[in-house]
């Protein structure tokens, strides 16, 4: 058995070498489709992050508030459903963040101009959008506003409202589109490999006639499909990474590449490379 598996692997590799042009075309199709899928995933994950980042509230206090009252408010907010964490921002930290936002090299020092640090201490309330859902943030804001010692709750109004109103629908829509793209990619990969096997139907027929078992005939083709899928997936992964890096050089946006975006093309290539070959060969083995 082990000899046969060794033979199957060698035969799978040899088959790729024998049909170099067909192999190159197949891998190219896999690379193109998986790169599109990968970029779609990277963009989706980053949009999700952006939406999550905007789901922070700034909670400001009355000027007369005491340390104990601040702690009390922290406990109450932390207990609200949908609150992931409450971060205290001191006046100094608020100034540091402000300076970072406007750019420290502008040579502006608000303290020296105004005589004191004008920025108030506050909480940044990080929301867990998975728990609370995008549609219920307004109710939470009202609850926080009603707490004693809270003067105001602020957030990125327009973006927040848009995200609050449409964020969930957008992500659902994006996920649905991603699934459609994934299905198209799977179909294209499986079909490409199926066509590769159709071109081999005469050989498969001959193999059956000389007494090869179904599994003996099938294995090299599955290995062939798997190799093409994995190589295509790896190239797609590298291309996706490279394109994001290139994009970042040209445009001043920060894009994160998640580990899933590195491995998804390889996994899809591996699984559906084999599956496409399996579907293709099954038709001829059953005849």
């Amino acid at each position, binding site marked *: *058995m082990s000899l*046969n598996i060794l*033979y199957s692997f060698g035969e799978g590799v040899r088959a790729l070498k024998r049909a170099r042009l067909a192999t190159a075309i197949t891998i190219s199709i896999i690379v193109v489709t998986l790169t599109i899928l990968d970029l779609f995933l990277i963009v989706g994950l980053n949009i999700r992050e952006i939406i999550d980042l905007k789901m922070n509230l700034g909670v400001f206090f009355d000027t007369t508030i005491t340390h104990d009252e601040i702690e009390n408010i922290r406990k109450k907010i932390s207990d609200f459903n949908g609150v992931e964490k409450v971060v205290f921002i001191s006046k100094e930290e608020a100034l540091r963040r402000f300076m970072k936002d406007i750019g420290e090299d502008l040579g502006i020092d608000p303290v020296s101009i105004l005589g004191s640090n004008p920025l108030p201490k506050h909480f940044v309330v990080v929301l867990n959008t998975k728990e609370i859902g995008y549609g219920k943030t307004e109710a939470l804001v009202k609850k926080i506003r009603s707490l004693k010692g809270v003067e105001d709750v602020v957030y990125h109004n327009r973006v927040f409202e848009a995200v609050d109103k449409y964020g969930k629908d957008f992500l659902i829509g994006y996920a649905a589109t991603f699934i459609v793209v994934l299905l198209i990619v799977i179909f294209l990969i499986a079909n490409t490999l199926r066509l590769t096997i159709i071109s081999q139907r005469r050989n498969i027929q*001959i193999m*059956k006639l000389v007494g*090869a078992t179904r599994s003996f005939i099938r294995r090299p083709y599955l290995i062939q499909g798997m190799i093409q899928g994995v190589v295509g997936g790896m190239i797609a992964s590298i291309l996706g990474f490279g394109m994001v890096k290139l994009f970042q050089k040209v445009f001043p946006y920060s894009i994160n590449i998640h580990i899933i975006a590195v491995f998804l093309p390889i996994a899809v290539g591996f699984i559906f490379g084999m599956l496409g070959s399996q579907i293709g060969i099954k038709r001829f083995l059953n005849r």
Partner: protein
Amino acid sequence: MIRLTNVWYWAGNNQILADINLHVDAGDFVCIIGPSGAGKTSLLSLIHMENFPTRGRVVVADFDSETIRENQIPLLRRKVSFIFQDFKLLEDRDVFENVAFALWATGVRRRRIKKRVFQVLAEVSLSHKRYSKIQELSGGEQQRVAIARALANEPFVLLADEPTGNLDSETTNEILDLLLKINRKGTAIVMATHKEEFQKKIPARVVMLREGRIVE
């Protein structure tokens, strides 16, 4: 060894074979002669169990058309080899690989495969072309590769469907001589052909087939 009993075979609405009774014993050379469309290829395909009789029974050694399971068919084909008019060689492989394939498929060890391939290629006088590509060979040489592949697993019977159909007369005689040589070593041969002159050329039992029936 091979026994066809009251075999009828229909392909769709067409009757191909009618009431065929035939037996082939070890070491026989049977020549099935008939015009195109007489049912010769269908008869061989029933022995090779690519097709099954609509009525009647085909028994080949321990394999019975009524009871054989799908996974037993490859085992049958290792002992009942087939050569064809169009050779049916794997054209993306060389001569050695074509012959070796039949042995790989049966799980023979690498060292034994090499030895056996060289042995059968010597039997068909093709040792010098063992690493040639199939496209580089003449028709006669390709048929000899097919015969070498058929012999690799030491079959007890060799089925030959118009094995000289694509060959000139000189090469035809070479292939017939080779088949006779193989037969003399003990392998039974069942050859289908439309060439009636073969009955004079080879000392074989002749079965005449007309419109799906054995006529003599």
